[in-house]
């Protein structure tokens, strides 16, 4: 169980980074995990245009287990200040990490890209919890896609 609940995860759970909904923002999404009822409302604020825009802020309110809460916090830490393109790359790497226990073809996780998010490697061994870890990351991708779509919601 200690491989699942690594100290980094527990730290982020107890002291989440970037929590709360803030202005300004270009897109807001609400995602739920229908199997367990976990929810997140997430806003993104971008500066610049297209894939080279900078993720200036990710603000969120969520309810859920330690894994989903910590995941949102780590994501905030990893993505804010980076470009959308970099963020999408990190998101892909995190998705890969979550599939690593079931997908032998996935390459080794990129430590430089994932940083603290590597602590979630143990989650991949508990299929029921993968969706918890992915909730905020999927919400972020959705929000950024909407923010970059001309005229708002695609």
């Amino acid at each position, binding site marked *: *169980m200690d491989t699942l609940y690594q100290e980094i995860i527990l730290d982020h759970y107890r002291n989440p980074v970037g929590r709360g909904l803030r202005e300004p923002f270009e897109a807001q999404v609400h995602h739920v995990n229908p199997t367990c009822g976990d929810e997140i409302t997430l806003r993104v604020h971008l500066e610049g245009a297209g894939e080279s825009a900078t993720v200036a802020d990710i603000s969120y309110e969520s309810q859920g287990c330690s894994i989903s809460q910590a995941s949102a916090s780590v994501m905030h830490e990893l993505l804010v200040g980076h470009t959308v393109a970099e963020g999408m790359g990190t998101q892909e790497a995190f998705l890969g990490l979550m599939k690593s226990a079931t997908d032998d073809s996935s390459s080794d996780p990129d430590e430089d890209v994932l940083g603290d998010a590597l602590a979630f490697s143990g989650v991949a061994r508990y299929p029921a919890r993968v969706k918890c870890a992915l909730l905020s990351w999927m919400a972020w991708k959705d929000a950024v896609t909407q923010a970059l779509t001309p005229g708002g919601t695609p």
Partner: protein
Amino acid sequence: MTTVALGAGQGRTLLDPALRADFPILARTVRGGQPLVYLDTAATSQKPAAVLDAEREFYEQRNSAVHRGAHFLAEQATDAFEASRAVIAGFIGGRAEELVFTRNATESINLVAHAFSSATAKKEHGAPLPDGAERFVLAPGDEIVVTEMEHHANLVPWQELCDKTGAVLRWIGLTDEGRLDLTDLDEVITERTRVVSFVHQSNILGTVNEVAPIAARAREVGALVVLDACQSVPHMPVDVRTLGVDLLAFSGHKMLGPTGVGCLWGRAEVLAAMPPFNTGGSMIAIVTMERTTFADPPQRFEAGSPNVAQAVGLAAAVQYLERVGMPAVAAHEHVLTEYALAALAEAPGVRIIGPTTATGRGGAVSFTVAGLHPHDVGQVLDDEGIAVRVGHHCAWPTCRRFDVPATTRASFGLYNQPFEVDLLVVGIRRAQRFFGVA
């Protein structure tokens, strides 16, 4: 079946723990060699060897298509299937011709909701309907009544029916203790109510609802009464002759039977008035290129190849329960529930969602732990080999009513024993320590 007393002078008895040996899965270990503590029977029950043997015996000795063909095995398979129907119907006080096999209770309820939308659409287009089908024809503004403690399976089909017909969904609210608030029953069930569908025992709160007052009011206004008996038929004596309901749905896998088989019991004249659900083979009377007439119930509602081996397995489960005796099962689970409620009431930070006394309640015990998300509670328990359910238990509106996103639920079956409740309480304390909230 021998019984042992728990506590002095309780007057109630537990079943012999020796019956655990009838359930092969209870002997296995999980998560690093720990004994399995299975507290998730409300989600699905474990199966005694007798059920597995019955299914295997069917496939090895009698497997064939039923209700067609004239060969020896076809006869034997048909006999096994229909004998199973009679055994299961008898278990709830019904007759074989009143029992429809479905995939599960969800399908049973959908079958009933579909009878309404189908009758309504056929009426509109002037298509033939069975005699008495008028009571299944809805008009915009007609009302359908459920309760705020329904499993999604007894909520969503009715919402869908409302969307299809213009009927309006209403519901009976809950008290803070997790019981139905019947104070304004006469205002919720009105002359416009056409069907009242409610749960017998809540899968999330554990509440056992009194059927009589609701059924009486429904009858007063001429509404059909549907009972979701998924959590009651496996755990207490249920007799359709005294319940006063028109239709009753339950699932095989929650009552020691196989997955893939559920039942819908209905009063004969009610089933006879219902148009079919799935259509195709086995459910017809005469088929021409222009038109088809339908078989009588229950075959009318059993299109396609039925779940024969599962029905046979479910009959074996029923016979197992009958050997133990449903009053004994109910008494056993009552003692366990009392024991669990008392233990959880004493555990710091634990809040029971649902009635806190064992009266009028069954052995599905939901709770929250202050400062901990149910997923995390469940994960720590799982680490100790304890299987509980976490989440909204397919009763999301009920969670909202009690202002909790989710709960942890321990639920009991006839094979559980008090030592497992003790392990649960120890596990909760460990979770609190692990996350630093105790």
